[in-house]
């Protein structure tokens, strides 16, 4: 990354990118999730080792990523329920060019379809990246990356 101060358009860049430049030091490690109001409940439960997903009390459908309202029927008051924590690999890519120094390549960036039907992005870990396949059964495994944040990774469910 170029030093923005060496760039003739530095002022424009810095001004517009201010919220992002502040996070820049994090690029040395694994990036933290930028926790929103919608996601707060997920991360609080994740810290306790529970994989939570949103469920709509009005239409009973589940949704992830979370939102204040239901994407299916637009009712409010979304509820959080515990997912089983198991699912299958919907798709993945073995990444050889990590965007952050704190990520060790190669790693498997994956989209998991939980047994409840929603999908989420993650990494499949605890197996060689060459073993990751679409349709492979996986289960959640939380790993703390700070005092308040535990990330949901997935490992083979043998």
């Amino acid at each position, binding site marked *: *990354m*170029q030093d923005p101060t060496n*760039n*003739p*358009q530095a002022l*424009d*860049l810095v001004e*517009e*990118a201010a919220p*992002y430049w502040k996070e820049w030091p994090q*690029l040395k490690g*694994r*990036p*933290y*999730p*930028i*926790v*929103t109001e919608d*996601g707060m409940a997920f991360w609080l439960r994740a810290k306790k080792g529970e994989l939570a997903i949103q469920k709509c009390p009005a239409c009973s459908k589940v949704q*992830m*990523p979370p939102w204040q309202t239901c994407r299916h029927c637009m009712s409010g008051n979304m509820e959080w329920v515990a997912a089983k924590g198991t699912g299958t690999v*919907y*798709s*993945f*890519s*073995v*990444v*050889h*060019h*990590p*965007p*952050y120094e704190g*990520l060790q390549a190669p*790693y498997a*960036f*994956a*989209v998991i379809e939980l047994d409840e039907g929603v*999908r*989420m*992005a*993650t*990494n499949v870990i605890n197996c060689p990246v060459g073993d990751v396949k*679409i349709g492979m059964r996986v289960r959640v495994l939380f790993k703390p*990356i700070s005092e308040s944040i535990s*990330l949901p990774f997935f490992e083979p469910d043998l």
Partner: protein
Amino acid sequence: MVSSVSGKASIIGFGEETMVKGNPLNYWSLMSLSSQRAIQDARLDKNEIDGLVTVASSWTTFNTAANVFMEYMGLKGVRHCKTMPYIGGMYYGAFQEAMYMITNGLAKNVLVVSADSQNLKYNRTESIQNHAQYYCEPQWERPFGGSIPAIYATIAQRYMHEYGATNEQFAAVKVAATKWALMHPLAMQKKPVTIDDVLNSPMAFSPLHLLDFSMFGGAGGFAFVLSSTDRAIARRGELANAPVRMEAFEIVPSQQFWVSYRDSMSISDELAIEVPAAYKAAGIGPKDVDLFYTCDTTTCAVLQALEDCGFCERGEAGSFVAAGGIDPGGALPTNTSGGSLSGRHPGGSVLVMSQLAEMMAQLRGEAGPRQVPGAEVAAVAYGGTAHSNQSYSIWRRLD
């Protein structure tokens, strides 16, 4: 687009400024040089431009604001202007916006202009980092090392799984793109490429090899002047070139490059709606299309677009391309400048504009050794990053 406005607007002027090396001109300069050429090409005085649509560049939105640009250019006649956002490919809406201005009688001559120099400023690694930092979903995907190329690769992996596409078929897209690029003086790929070259290039984001991705580099400004088709025909005698009529322009908004939000990875939900609507509005079918331009930031994306747009049955685009279907002389000449796979990717917001520049060259019969004989109808399928905001448009040269 509703059929009542189908075919009512036409491109009457075009100008570009492409840079391949050195310090990029800033957005203003690229926009003004290309606008100057487009306005001259349309045989208009600058003050006859009464509608203006600018498209934000990848790194700043303010820099390309339409009302600022019109002052900078001294466009005294502008009465309606709009700045399209960068993110997620909504910039393709610029043409739709111009069409609305024209068909509603708000403007007679609308200038559509955009510029970007992102890919002259940053090398490949920096560009990947930038994209991961800015455009990856920050709460649910970025912590896991998601990035734009990783998302494209995840889509490709699923497409292979569902339709049995192979890496050899992906490679055939790069080989075809290179055949076109070798006939373009500004293309980045200067040597022929074989299937084995692609397969032997380093695995970058599985299942995609390094040569399955576009070539970042360059900067460009692109400008188009549109007027009503009636006015274009009435002025045909004074125009430098045949007008190019917008037969249909369909956009279904979405922001699906965040993979965890996508319903399908192999099929574009947007194109499924747009493509039949566009063919109906234009009164043609896929067989009538002479030229096809589509987002080729990965080889796989081209195969998916060929299927989404009705040129191939599902799962058959790979064999179509491998048999030379999109080559020079093939059944459907595609991305005839080499696109971004072998030509150049001048930056997010102007990739499609650079493809439209090639479309203009082809439809005007100015494409030199790449010229597709008798090319009259072009189709353009483009979205933003990783298939978000897919749009479909059809264009026809008026003689």
